[in-house]
C-alpha cells in the first residue's frame, strides 16, 4: 500500500514538475507533508497543487492510446480559439505547447483551459507564467467536452 502511494506520488510530482519538491531521496510521507504545507500556504488543496484549480476535481481515466477522432475535433477547436496565442514549438503570446502534456497532468491542462483567471491567481506555476508572459490567458468559451478534445489533440502533438 505504502509502495503504491509512493509510486502515485512520484508520478504526480514528476507530472507537476515543480523542482523544489521533487527531492527523490526524501521519504514519501515527508514529501506528502511538505506538499501539504505548500498547498496550505497557498490556500489550495494537494490535489489542486498537482492538477490545477478548476472544474476538474478528480483524476480522469485516460487511456494510453490516442483517440484520433477526438484529437481531430480538438485540432479544429485549437485552430479557432487557441492558435492565435499558442504554437507547438515556439514561444508566441503564450508558451509553446508541444510537450505540455509531459510537463503537466491532464487535469492541470484542462483546468488551465477552463479556468485560466483563477489559475493565474492561485496556482504557483500558472502565476509564474503570468509573470513571464505578462498576458492573462483568457477563457475561450469552451465546454468541458471541448477541453477534453483539446487535451487529446495536445497529447497527439506530443508524440509528433
Amino acid at each position, binding site marked *: 500500500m505504502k509502495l503504491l502511494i509512493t509510486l502515485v506520488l512520484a508520478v504526480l510530482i514528476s507530472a507537476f514538475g515543480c523542482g523544489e519538491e521533487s527531492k527523490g531521496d526524501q521519504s514519501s510521507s515527508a514529501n506528502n507533508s511538505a506538499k501539504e504545507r505548500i498547498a496550505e500556504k497557498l490556500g489550495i488543496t494537494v490535489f489542486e497543487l498537482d492538477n490545477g484549480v478548476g472544474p476538474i476535481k478528480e483524476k480522469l481515466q485516460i487511456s494510453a492510446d490516442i483517440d484520433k477522432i477526438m484529437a481531430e475535433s480538438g485540432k479544429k477547436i485549437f*485552430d479557432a480559439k487557441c*492558435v*492565435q496565442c499558442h504554437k507547438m514549438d515556439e514561444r508566441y*503570446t503564450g508558451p509553446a505547447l508541444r510537450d505540455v502534456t509531459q510537463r503537466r497532468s491532464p487535469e492541470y491542462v484542462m483546468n488551465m483551459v477552463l479556468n485560466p483567471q483563477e489559475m493565474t491567481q492561485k496556482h504557483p506555476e500558472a502565476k509564474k507564467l503570468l509573470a513571464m508572459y*505578462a*498576458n*492573462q490567458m483568457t477563457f*475561450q*468559451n469552451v465546454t468541458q467536452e471541448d477541453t477534453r478534445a483539446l487535451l487529446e489533440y495536445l497529447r497527439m502533438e506530443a508524440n509528433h
Partner: protein
Amino acid sequence: MLKIKLIAPLCFAVLFIIALSACSENGSTPGTNGALDTDAAEKVYVAPGEYDEFYSFMSGGFSGQVTVYGLPSGRLFKIIPVFSQYPENGYGYTPETRPMLQTSYGEIPWDDAHHPELSQTNGVPDGRWLFINGNNTPRVARIDLSTFETEEIIEIPNSAGNHGSPFITMNTEYVVASTRFSVPIPQKDVPISSYKENFKGTLSFINVEQETGHMNLAFQILVPGFNYDLAHAGKGPSHGWAFFTSYNSEEANTLLEINASQNDKDFIAAVNWKLAEEYVKQGKGKEYKSEYYNNRYNNESHTAVAEKKEKVLILDPKDCPGLIYYLPTPKSPHGVDVDPSGEYIVAGGKLATVIPVHSFSKMIKAIEDKDFITEIYGIPVLKYESVIAGEVENPGLGPLHTEFDGNGFAYTSAFISSEVVKWKIGTWEVVDRIPSYYSIGHLMIPGGDSQKPFGKYLVSLNKITKDRYLPTGPELCQSAQLIDISGDKMKLLLDFPTIGEPHYAQAIPADLLMDKQKKIFELENNKHEYGVKSEKDARVERKGNEVHIYMTTTRTHFKPDNIEGVNVGDKVYFHITNLEQDWDIPHGFAVKGMRTAELLIMPGQTRTAIWEPQREGVYPFYCTDFCSALHQEMQGYIRISPRNSSTKISFN
C-alpha cells in the same frame, strides 16, 4: 452661496448635522439643499464593488443617445449610441453600422431622442427591450437589453416631429407614436397659410414581433391638423385603448405661443386600437405610397441592413366610427398618464390651473350614452363633466407629467414653479411638494408608468442647473435629482449631472437585467461576410483597387501585422475579427491618417475600417482600447507604395 453655507454652521454653533438640517429648512433659497434628507449620503452610497439597485435609462435629448445610470448612486455606466454617430466605438461610421442611420432622406448622423420606454409583459417592465423616439426625422429605435446595443430603427412616414412616442401597450403589442407637427399628407407644395385645408396629423401603431422584437408599421390613423404631444396606452380595464394629447386645436400655423392658447380646452384623443385592428381586417385602411426605412442589426452577421419600404396602411376616422373620441382637456395638455389600475387618465395641462383626471369607466359610459357636445372633423367630443373623475387643485405652475408609486399616490412635475407635487388618487388632494433645481420636465419612478411601480425613488429630470454645479462657461449641464418617496414626505437625496438633456428616463430593478447580459459573441456563430474564425485564415486579398485585409486581433497582436503591396489610390478595408471569447476584452483599431472613427470590436465580433491612403510611406496601426500589459506592443505597419506600383501583396 458659499458664504451662507459657512455662516450657517457658525451662527448655530452647534453640531454640523443640526446646522445642515437647519439649512434644509431654509430650502427655498436657490442653491441650498432644499428638503435634503439628513442621512441622504448613506441612502445613496453604494460601496466600491457593490451594485446599484436599479438600472436607469435616460434619454440624451439633443445628444441623440441613451445613457445608463445606476440608482441610487447616480453613477454613469454606459452611453448607448442610438441616433447619433459615435466615434468612440465607430457606430454610424463603419459599413456594419452605417445602415442604422439610413432614412428616406439619406444617412442622418443625429437626432433628438426624448422618451425611453421599457418593453412590458402584463403591464410590467420585462427587461427585453428599450424603445426610444427620434423627434426630428421621425424614427423609433429598439435597444436590446442583453447587449445594450441599438438593434433596430424604423422611420415613421407621414409624421413630423415624432414627439408623442414611443409608448407601448401592456404586452408590447404595439409601440404608438404621434406627430407633433401636422403637415400636408401626403407632402405637397402648398402655402403655409392653407394649414386648415391641407394639414393633417397621424397616429402610428408599430407592431412588435414578440420573439424577435422586430418592428413593423401596422397602420396609421389620419387625424385633424392639431399638434400631438404625448401618449400613453391603457392598461387593465383600459387595455385596448391609447390616449394622445393634442394642443393647437386652433390649427394655428404661426406664433403658436399666442395663437395656440386661445381655446379653453384642447383634447385628449382616446383611440380604440383593438377596433382599429378590426377595421384593418375589414379592409377599411387605404394604402398610401410612403417611403420609409426599417434598419435592423444582426448579432451574427454583426451587420445592419437598411430596408426601404414603400407603402403604409392609413385609417381615416370618417370611415371608422367609434375609432376615436375626444376628451376635452384644459389647456394645451402636455403629458397624458394612465394610473396603475388603468382607470384614471391624468393630463398635464401646462397652462391649466388644475390637473384634470379623466375616468376610463365614465368615458365608456359617456360613449354608450352618446353624451357628446359636438363633433370635430367627424370625431365625437365627449362632455367634460361626464368623463372627469376629479381635478387636482393648486398643483403648481405648468404641470407636465405624472407618474405613480403603486401605493395610491401620483407625482406631477410642475415646470414653471420647479417642483414635484404629490397628490392622492381618489381624493385629488395635494399631500406634499418638493422643489426641483430647476425647471423639471419629466419625472420618473422605476416602473412608474406600469401596472406595478417599483416605487422607492423618484428622479426629477431638470433642464436648468444654474448655480448647482461648478460653472463651465456658457453651457451648463442638465441634471437629475434623486428623491426618496418611501415615506410620507419626499426627501431629496442626490443631484447628478447628465449627458445631453435627460428628457425622460425609465428604470428597472437590476436583477431583471444583470443575469441576462451577453458577455461575448460566440465565434462559431460569427456570420460576418468578412469575418475569420481562426488566425490561420488571416490574409490580404486584392480585388482591383480594393484591398481586403482579413485581420484577427487577440491579446496582444494583430494578424497580419505587416502588410505590403498597397498603393496610393487603393481603398483598404480592414475587416477585423476579435478572436477573444472572454468577457470585457474588446480591442480597438486605428491607422494613422484614417479619416473615420476608430473601431471598438467586442469579443467574437467583426468590424471594418475603410482607409484610402493618400501618400506613400509606412503607416502604423495600433490597438486603441487598453487591453493588457502588452497593449503598447499591439501594433503593426502597412506600407503604401506610389499609385500603380507593382509591389506584390505580402503580409505576415
